[in-house]
């Protein structure tokens, strides 16, 4: 590098004061971003990623002690001048755009605010500039958006507005803290395109913080991998993700379910959890979880070139980094013949609408004359027919608001359906099912923090359904609790613990054990692994896989993560606005012919190691909430392959390219079959 880097951090350390003593959140983190460069900062939750962003901004607060050998931004001392730099030369985009915008101020005034403060612009000039910034980030009707309040915009629009605000004073560096994590995958793809374009057109430097390796791979030149406050690996993105050196990076990639590879056998979980940062380990802090640990790992490790001489840009903090290490793949349970049992659950024409607003909310006045608006409704699930065979996994994908969760609750009769029938093991399930159905059909929720009662111990939580459904009593029930704990790979020592004493992965296992307590044949897993880190998610996915093999449980597996669905599902159903638009065997759904929505969804998935895929990307305008006509195809208003008015008004016919693979679309099958594969699956 000829020029001095724009941002350079040398041995940045951050310590938080806690009740248990100082917590070393960051230890000697060094990184440099050249002008116009893009650095990705990856790591799981608790690795210290966000602390780096806040330290650069000087916003860590009073509880934190920040030290560094040097921290420079374009020749300035970052720590001394951070208050003068932020908002002017360093812009930030935080994770959740709904939280980052003040609900009480218009979007335009928030974009204009730094212009008035830092550039001394008049309110009128700043407001006009805000409108042009909003249209630069791709918001249609920017003037209306500027006058709107945050709650009137969708998530994707809000994030564009936040980006516009961060760009207002034409910063040199943009800090992006998980900028797309709160967004749907098709919207995420739009935002990534925008960031990529801005980087080129404005010569921006980026620091992208993310847990998603696919996003980082798309946008960044260089990567820094953070583990428990230390940099464990650093280097050019493509080389690093192609051939990772540090065992942790290798583990992360092995644990990642890949949408483009589908079911490749077992994922490789990383056992254990983050080390206690109040007592930092002088040696390698990953060694407790590492498959290759040896006594020499207890010695302090330095961040050093992986191979001496040849490639000095690849650094790793591991004395074995140069060796060819392959994480051991865990043993597979005895694999039974899957997904060819009898039909266990069959839903036909299930629909459910929710009313919007109460009686007074519908009352409005025009020229002083009161009028009562008709009851507004949203059709969350609209005539869905699907079936799950014994021992089969049906994956249900779709973006937020498409009705996945409602459908999951409808097939368990946790909420009543407006119309349609539900059969379980051949028998009609009434609206208020009895204990027999409840025993056989259970659910695992997304967030174990809110679905486990914090006042009950693990044993009490699991024991309740055991006795409730009459599985066992007394001492037998206690034995059953131990058996269930063992089933989810937790030792009986967990019996007396409370939920707050468990890690996220352990909590989710308790949720699974509770669902299995009644010995069900069918489980709805509603985003059951979405809240978990990749390394823990892999363990839970493997566990669910084994349980199916050992117990023959069928799943309705709901997820927004195509990678996870591609990994677990035998069959996949794709939902859009309450309707199933495509359904079929996993391999068939993930390869052409696609429904145009499936195609867009799959091509929006950020993949690791396929930066060249950009050419084939399908981009959708708007988001799910964009207005749609009634009647025809639910996707018509956003469809890039829309034929004409027929899509808006006529219910699309169901095409069946193969037996069991159904696509609801007006386009001829030949056209759908001719599209290039979005995931590399032919």
């Amino acid at each position, binding site marked *: 590098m000829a020029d001095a880097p724009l941002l350079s951090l040398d041995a940045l350390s951050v310590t938080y004061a806690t009740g248990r003593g100082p917590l070393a959140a960051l230890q000697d983190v060094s990184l440099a971003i050249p002008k116009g460069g893009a650095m990705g900062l990856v790591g799981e939750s608790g690795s210290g990623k966000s602390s780096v962003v806040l330290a650069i*901004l000087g*916003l860590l607060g009073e509880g934190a002690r920040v030290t560094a050998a040097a921290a420079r931004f374009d020749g300035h001392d970052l720590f001394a001048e951070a*208050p*003068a730099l*932020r*908002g*002017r030369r360093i812009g*930030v985009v*935080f994770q*959740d755009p*709904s*939280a*980052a*915008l*003040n*609900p*009480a*101020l*218009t979007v335009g005034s928030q974009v204009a*605010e*730094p212009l008035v*403060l*830092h550039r001394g612009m008049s309110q009128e000039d700043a407001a006009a500039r805000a409108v042009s910034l909003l249209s630069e980030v791709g918001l249609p*009707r920017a003037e*209306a*958006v500027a*006058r*709107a*309040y945050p*709650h*009137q*915009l*969708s998530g994707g629009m809000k994030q564009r507005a*936040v980006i516009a*605000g*961060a760009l207002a004073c034409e910063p040199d560096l943009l800090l992006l803290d998980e900028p797309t994590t709160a967004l749907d995958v098709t919207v995420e793809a739009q935002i990534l395109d925008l960031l990529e374009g801005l980087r080129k057109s404005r010569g921006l430097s980026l620091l992208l913080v993310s847990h998603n390796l696919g996003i980082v791979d798309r946008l960044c030149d260089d990567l820094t991998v953070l583990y428990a406050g230390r940099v464990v690996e650093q280097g050019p993105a493509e080389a690093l993700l192609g051939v990772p050196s540090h065992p942790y990076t290798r583990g992360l990639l092995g644990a990642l379910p890949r949408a483009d590879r589908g079911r490749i056998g077992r994922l490789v979980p990383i056992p254990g959890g983050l080390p206690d940062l109040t007592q930092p380990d002088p040696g390698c802090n990953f060694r407790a979880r590492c498959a290759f640990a040896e006594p020499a790992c207890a010695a302090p490790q330095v961040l050093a070139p992986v191979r001496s001489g040849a490639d000095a840009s690849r650094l790793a903090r591991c004395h074995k980094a140069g060796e060819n290490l392959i994480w051991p793949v865990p043993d597979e349970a005895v694999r039974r013949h899957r997904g060819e049992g009898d039909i266990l659950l069959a839903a036909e024409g299930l629909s459910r609408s929710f009313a919007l607003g109460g009686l*007074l*909310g519908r*009352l*409005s*006045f025009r020229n002083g004359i*009161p009028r009562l608006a008709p009851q507004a409704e949203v059709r969350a699930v609209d005539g869905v027919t699907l079936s799950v065979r014994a021992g089969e996994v049906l994956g249900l994908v779709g973006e937020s608001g498409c009705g996945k969760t409602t459908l999951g609750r409808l097939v368990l009769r946790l909420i009543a359906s407006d119309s349609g029938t539900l059969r379980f093991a051949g028998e009609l399930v009434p609206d208020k099912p009895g204990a027999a159905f409840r025993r056989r059909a259970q659910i695992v929720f997304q967030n174990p923090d809110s679905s486990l009662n914090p006042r009950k111990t693990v044993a009490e939580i699991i024991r309740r359904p055991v006795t409730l459904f009459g599985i066992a009593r007394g001492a037998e029930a206690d034995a059953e609790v131990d058996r269930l704990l063992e089933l989810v790979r937790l030792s009986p020592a967990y019996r007396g613990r409370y939920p707050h004493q468990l890690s996220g992965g352990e909590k989710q296992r308790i949720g699974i054990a509770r669902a299995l307590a009644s010995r069900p044949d069918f489980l709805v897993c509603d985003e059951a692994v979405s809240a978990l880190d990749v390394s823990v998610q892999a363990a839970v996915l493997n566990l669910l896989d084994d349980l199916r093999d050992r117990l023959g449980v069928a799943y309705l597996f709901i997820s927004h993560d195509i990678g996870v669905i591609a990994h677990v599902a035998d069959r996949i159903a794709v939902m859009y606005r309450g309707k199933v638009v495509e359904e079929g065997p996993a391999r068939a759904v993930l390869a052409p012919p696609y429904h145009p929505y499936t195609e867009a969804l799959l091509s929006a998935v950020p993949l690791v190691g396929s930066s060249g895929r950009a050419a084939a990307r399908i981009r959708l305008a708007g988001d799910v*909430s964009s207005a749609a006509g009634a009647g025809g195809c639910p996707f018509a208003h956003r469809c890039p392959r829309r034929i004409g008015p027929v899509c808006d008004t006529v219910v699309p016919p169901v095409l069946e390219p193969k037996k069991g693979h159904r696509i609801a679309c007006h386009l001829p099958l030949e056209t759908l079959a001719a599209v290039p594969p979005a995931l590399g699956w032919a």
Partner: protein
Amino acid sequence: MASYIARRLVAVLGVLWAMTLLIFGIVHLLPGNVAYMILGEYATADAIATLEARLGLNDPIYVQYWRWFTGLLGGDFGQSLVMDRPAGPLIAEALGRSAILAGISIVLVAIIGIALGIHSAVHKGTLSDRLLTLLQYFFIAVPEFFWCILLILFFAAWLGWLPATGYTPLAEGGLVGWGVHLILPVFTLVSGLIAHVSRLTRSSMLETLDSGYVLAARARGVPERLVLRRHALPNALLPTVTVLAVDVGILIGGIVVVETVFAYPGLGRLLIFAIENHDVPLLMAGMMVVTTVYAVANLVADILYAFLNPRIRYGRAAA
């Protein structure tokens, strides 16, 4: 916004109408004869019959209700039995004096409570925050009648600085003579409420200061004073506004006690008087007025809330 206010107004009118049913029902449908209740157990049959005729108690119940209800709509609050005067002017006079007490109190509660709450939140964990916290819990814990007695003993009986009881109209006593009668009652009324409001403001301000948009504003380089004033305060005040309306209800309850102890001739004392003397028409009218005050306070709070919160001011129409 106009539509929102109109909707709230419809709701308030609905509540008031329901209250007329409730108040009328309590008095007329409970077991026992109203005339008997008024005259007491030694009343002669003749006296009861006369009073029944005067009150129209022999008419069917819905006719009686309709007569009272249409009277209310026309501004006729009925006739006080004991004082033999129309209840309307009696109540208006007392209400005016109570309104002075309550108005000063609620303004003090809002200003001092919010200011202290913001101060504590911004200086969280400092000595002044801890000291305020201690004082606030003390004032919340001690009931108001205790203050009444203590204050009278200290300032009126012992020091002799302030009058213990009574009221002097502004025209007679001038600003000082009028004001000295208000100090002790107002202090009694506001002490607990200020503590309550400042605790609430402190916690909602802390929550707001911890929010994403405050962090985002700081990251944008907005100076701290502006962060507090423009970004944090309008959002932090939302729960306070709602609670202030509820506090008006608590204040009305407090006024009944305070007016009685300090012999202050307001609505609270008039209500007690009506109860003690079995003056049913006066009691019903007084209760309607109290209800209306409370309902209007909530209406004002709703409108203020909408003013501070664009999510209510504007619907979810996409821009």
